[in-house]
């Protein structure tokens, strides 16, 4: 009971204390300014009134508290008794402070007063102060006030000027007046300002108010616009309690609590929208099940094994197929011994799908929910459909043919011997390319002509040069050909636009004189007949080449005005033809030896003439232009046939000694075999060379051989057998590639010729050599 009044009293005191006011002010911040103004006004009005007002206010307060408490009698009594003291005390202190306090204190008081109450009119019309409730906040109690505190309250200290003490402490002991210095001391004090000197007097102690170091610093911080509290850090380092970084050693392994999860507002809005729509029935979450219609028309199905009873094994009884029970392997989490190791797994993966012993690979899944979907589902469905669609209903008999039997029967190379295989002799002596060469009809001599303008005759087997003549210096000998027939040795050679007929002194006197005879026979005819024959063809004059060459054996010479590229003899040795591709209408000329006569059989020739040949047995003349070969009947003087090899540029061609077959070599690397009886188109195309084919030749001595010479430096030997039977096609077998000639300036083998009887081949190369192949 005793404590209560004290507490009450303290309450009253504290209520009036500046701290309490402060709190009030902060609470009712709205009307602070007006209240402040009122307070200032009231302070300026008078001070006496203040006491009354205070007393009345206390009364009112008391009454109020009574009203508020609605309290017990004890409380009322107590409150009635004690407040008088309190009032007096409060008054004293209020007044004391008012008088004692400096400007700052007074202002505080002024401030606190209007904040505490509202003035209304009571029933008598007197102003009534209604005090606001005191919020018993922390610090409202000052029970921990310092012991040495003066308890005289808020009165001016001047009241005690006449006493030796200045007040009383909480225990009622007099607080002695501090000794006052002399005026000089005061002066000195004023001069030597100690740290913390304010020039004020602490009202509580009466000592000069000195600020402690701490307080000074606080003041300083306030001045500097800093936070007054010393340890406060306005910008603390962020502690990332929650971060996206995964820590290796997290502070806690606890999973994220659900409360951390912040649902998306937008999503919840949308969900709510849907929820609302579902509730209102605007959205139907499930399609209403279609009404079951019993299909009576459907085919009736039976489960034949529905009521199966065990029966003894019998062929007519088909028991229900029994699926094997699933093994451990098929489990989603098989025991470790059923799991394949790495090698088994690899073997299974590498194996062809059909070869795998089981269709699946036992796999360990931690939980059933981790088992993935069956990946091959679609594929298997599709394949099943495909099987059903494509399933053959009939056993298809496979075509059982040995592929070997479909290949043409080629005779073995051994059976096709002899044919040339190796280089037996080299003929070295020409300076520059050897353009043409030919083996004489007896098969003993080889004649060659080259870029050095010489014609040379060699002994075929040994490679010994027997005879040589230089026909020109600038131009190359483009072609040399022997006259057919062994009764005389006559060589024809073309150098530039000149054609020479030569009787080389290599035979015996009889043969040599015969050759001279044949060549000289035409002189008289030319002298006699030239005048009577006024035709245009005779414009070409056959002349003697001059004594130097005549002594060498060169007997006749004539010019065709354009470079002669090809000479070919008629089999009887009476005629020969020349081809000068550059001469348009006079490209092909036929010469008669016995008359020394040159004829131009074609008034106009379509295309660029490339080569010309006499047919080996019939009076037919064949002329090759760039793309076609035309055959003419010499006796009827008409065009017989146009052979179309289909090549872009024919380089040479040759007629089989039988007369019905033709080989054509082209600059576009093809060797074409034509069967004249069959078609004008090629019977066979052989495309084995890398470069243009320069020459083709049939063996004329009865061996079924033909060969071609190409710019790639190789010769190819073929077996080409022609049978008399019209029903059977020619057999063409590639036999041998002869390599050895060097390729110089894109040119390889320029000409080739067969030995008249032996299976020997001679070739002329751009590397300056001729070679004999046996």
């Amino acid at each position: 009971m005793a404590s209560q009044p004290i507490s009450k009293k303290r309450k009253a005191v504290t209520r009036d204390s500046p701290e309490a006011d402060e709190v009030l002010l902060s609470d009712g911040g709205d009307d602070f300014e007006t209240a402040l103004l009122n307070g200032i006004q009231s302070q300026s009005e008078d001070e006496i009134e203040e006491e009354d007002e205070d007393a009345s206010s206390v009364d009112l307060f008391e009454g109020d508290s009574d009203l508020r408490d609605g309290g017990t009698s004890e409380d009322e009594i107590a409150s009635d008794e004690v407040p008088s003291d309190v009032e007096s005390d409060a008054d004293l202190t209020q007044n004391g402070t008012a008088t004692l306090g400096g400007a700052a204190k007074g202002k505080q008081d002024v401030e606190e007063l209007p904040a505490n109450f509202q003035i209304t009119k009571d029933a008598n019309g007197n102003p009534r102060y209604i005090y606001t409730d005191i919020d018993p906040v922390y610090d409202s109690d000052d029970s921990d006030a310092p012991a040495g505190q003066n308890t005289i309250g808020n009165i001016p200290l001047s009241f005690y000027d006449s006493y030796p003490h200045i007040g009383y402490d909480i225990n009622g002991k007099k607080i002695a007046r501090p000794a006052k210095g002399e005026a000089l001391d005061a002066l000195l004090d004023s001069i030597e300002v100690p740290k913390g000197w304010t020039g004020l007097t602490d009202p509580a102690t009466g000592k000069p108010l000195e600020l402690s170091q701490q307080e000074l610093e606080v003041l300083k911080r306030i001045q500097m616009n800093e936070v007054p509290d010393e340890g406060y850090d306005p910008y603390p380092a962020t502690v990332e309690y929650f971060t996206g970084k995964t820590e290796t050693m997290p502070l806690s392994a606890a999973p994220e609590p659900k409360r951390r999860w912040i649902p998306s507002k937008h999503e919840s809005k949308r969900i709510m929208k849907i929820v609302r729509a579902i509730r209102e029935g605007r959205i139907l979450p499930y399609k209403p099940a279609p009404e079951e219609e019993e299909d009576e028309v459907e085919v009736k199905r039976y489960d034949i094994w529905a009521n199966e009873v065990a029966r003894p094994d019998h062929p007519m009884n088909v028991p229900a197929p029994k699926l094997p029970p699933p093994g451990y392997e098929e489990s989603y989490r098989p025991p470790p011994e059923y799991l394949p190791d790495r090698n088994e797994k690899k073997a299974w993966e590498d194996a062809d799908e059909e070869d795998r012993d089981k269709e699946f690979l036992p796999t360990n899944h931690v939980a059933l929910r981790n088992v993935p979907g069956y990946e091959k589902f679609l594929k298997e469905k599709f394949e099943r459909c495909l099987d059903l669609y494509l399933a053959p209903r009939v056993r298809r008999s496979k075509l059982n043919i040995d592929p070997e039997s479909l290949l043409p029967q080629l005779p073995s190379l051994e059976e096709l011997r002899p044919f040339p295989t190796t280089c037996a002799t080299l003929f070295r002596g020409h300076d520059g390319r050897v353009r043409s060469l030919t083996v004489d009809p007896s098969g003993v001599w080889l004649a060659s002509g080259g870029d050095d303008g010489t014609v040379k005759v060699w002994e075929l087997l040994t490679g010994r040069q027997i005879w040589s003549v230089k026909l020109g210096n600038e131009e190359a000998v483009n072609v040399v050909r022997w006259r057919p027939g062994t009764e005389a040795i006559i060589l024809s050679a073309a150098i530039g636009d000149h054609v020479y007929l030569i009787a080389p002194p290599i035979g015996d006197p009889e043969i040599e004189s015969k050759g001279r005879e044949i060549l000289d026979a035409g002189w008289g005819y030319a002298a006699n007949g030239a005048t009577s024959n006024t035709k245009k063809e005779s414009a070409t004059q056959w002349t003697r080449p001059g004594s130097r060459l005549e002594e060498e054996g060169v007997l006749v010479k004539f010019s065709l005005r354009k470079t002669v590229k090809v000479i070919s003899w008629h089999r009887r040795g009476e005629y020969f033809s020349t081809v000068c591709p550059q001469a348009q209408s006079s490209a092909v000329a036929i010469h008669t030896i016995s008359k020394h006569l040159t004829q131009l059989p074609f008034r106009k020739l379509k295309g660029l003439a490339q080569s010309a040949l006499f047919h080996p047995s019939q009076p037919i003349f064949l002329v090759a232009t760039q793309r076609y070969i035309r055959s003419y009947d010499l006796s009827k003087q008409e065009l017989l046939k146009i052979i179309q090899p289909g090549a872009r540029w024919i380089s040479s061609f040759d007629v089989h000694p039988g007369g019905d077959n033709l080989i054509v070599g082209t600059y576009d690397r093809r060797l074409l075999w034509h069967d004249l009886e069959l078609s004008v188109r090629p019977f066979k195309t052989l495309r084995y060379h890398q470069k243009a084919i320069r020459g083709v030749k049939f063996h004329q001595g009865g061996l079924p051989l033909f060969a071609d010479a190409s710019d790639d430096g190789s010769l190819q030997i073929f077996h080409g057998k022609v049978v008399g039977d019209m029903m059977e096609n020619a057999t063409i077998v590639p036999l041998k590639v002869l390599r050895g000639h060097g390729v110089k300036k894109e040119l390889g083998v320029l000409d080739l010729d067969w030995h008249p009887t032996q299976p020997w081949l001679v070739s002329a190369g751009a590397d300056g050599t001729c070679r004999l192949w046996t």
Partner: protein
Amino acid sequence: MATETLTATSTSDSPSQVRVLLSTRHPDISLPENPGPILVNTNLRRYALSTLVNTLLQSEKPIPFEFLINGTFLRTSLDEYLTANGISAESTLGVEYVRAIIPPLYLASFEHDDWVSAVDFLSETSPAGKWAGSAGARKSGQERMLSGSYDGFLRIWSMSSEVLATSPSASNGGHTSSIKAARYISPSHLASAGLDRTIRLWKYSEDPEGFTASISPQVELYGHKASIESLAVHQPSSRILSASADHTLGLWSTKKSDAPAAPTSLLPSSTSQSFKRRKMGPSTSTPQRGPLSLLKSHTAPVSHAIFAPNDHTVAYTTSWDHALKTWDLPTSTCVDTRSTSHSLLSLSALPALSLLAAGTSARHITLIDPRASATTVSAMTLRGHTNAVVSLAADPESNYGLVSGSHDGTCRVWDVRSSRSEKEGRVGESLYVIERESLKGERKKVGGEGVKVFDVVWDTSVGIVSGGEDKRVQVNRGKGMVAEKGA
């Protein structure tokens, strides 16, 4: 040592042994006492057997031996031989041993101005020397070599590489073109022929000291219309055979009196048009004669002609037309034709075997039995050359030896016993290959370019003599063969 070998063989882990009966036909190397059958290990090869024989002979210097079993040389171990021929190891094997041929060593070269087309030898063992008998016998070291060259000259060489005599030039009655064949008729008579289609007989005279000699033309024989490829001479009957590219075989007499007159159309003076030839016509008049007969049956150039070794009235010829023909000379008829499948380019007789060896253009040598009773044309094929075989000569000492010269630039020595059976018959391999000395250190040329061998002669006293495109005559001596025969 033989007993050691035998004990070693008996204790060795290979149990197979065979009984061997050693024998020889040469008395100088026959075993002192017949040891009877010897049990030898079947894994022995030629060298071990040779050591064994040397031990039995107790010869201080080991002689290399070759071993012949059933007529063929032992080239493998005995075991392989028995397996290959299906002979039981329990039977007694008759083994004949002969001296091994020692590699023909290079002796000397005779350098010429042009290709050497023909060589022949005059020694006491050469045909000409034998025909001459003791009168013209040449002592060892006095041998003479005759060479014919493409430059148209014949040369007589002493064995010290000196040219003793050269034939006269074309203007003095010499060959107007290349010589392709040259033979000794007798020590003082020579025959040569060539591209000028004539056979020329020469007289060779040499002063007794052997420092000066001369070749003078004796007779010119006209008749062939193309170059003459080879000559064969038989001095006792004074006959000459010539093979010509005009497809004929010519039979000539060496005696002026026997020979008919030359066909006038073939004489060089007959061609009025031949200015050059007329100008260069012979200033010295040499008697001109014609052939006794020209035998025509071949259809291609005749490449070689020889007299039958035992009968000078029979001749054999080879030709490019693949045929080997036998001629009866007195009647001038072709009595037999053997057709092969290749052009034949050279011919030589192996009299002891009654076989003819013919070199072909297909790089091998065919052994042909010319007797009418022979059923097969080709008895054996000798393979190894890489180009045409143009010259053959039989070993004068052995009945089985043969040397061949080829356009591939090698001469090969063959022993017909060294052979094996293949599906196309018996095939032989060469014992030795004689390369051209001029080619030493160089790669083999394509087509034997520059080193072709044109002629080869095998003489007992000198060795193997070959001439070729490298402008030299090369002499190789088969030292072992030649020296030990004489010993």
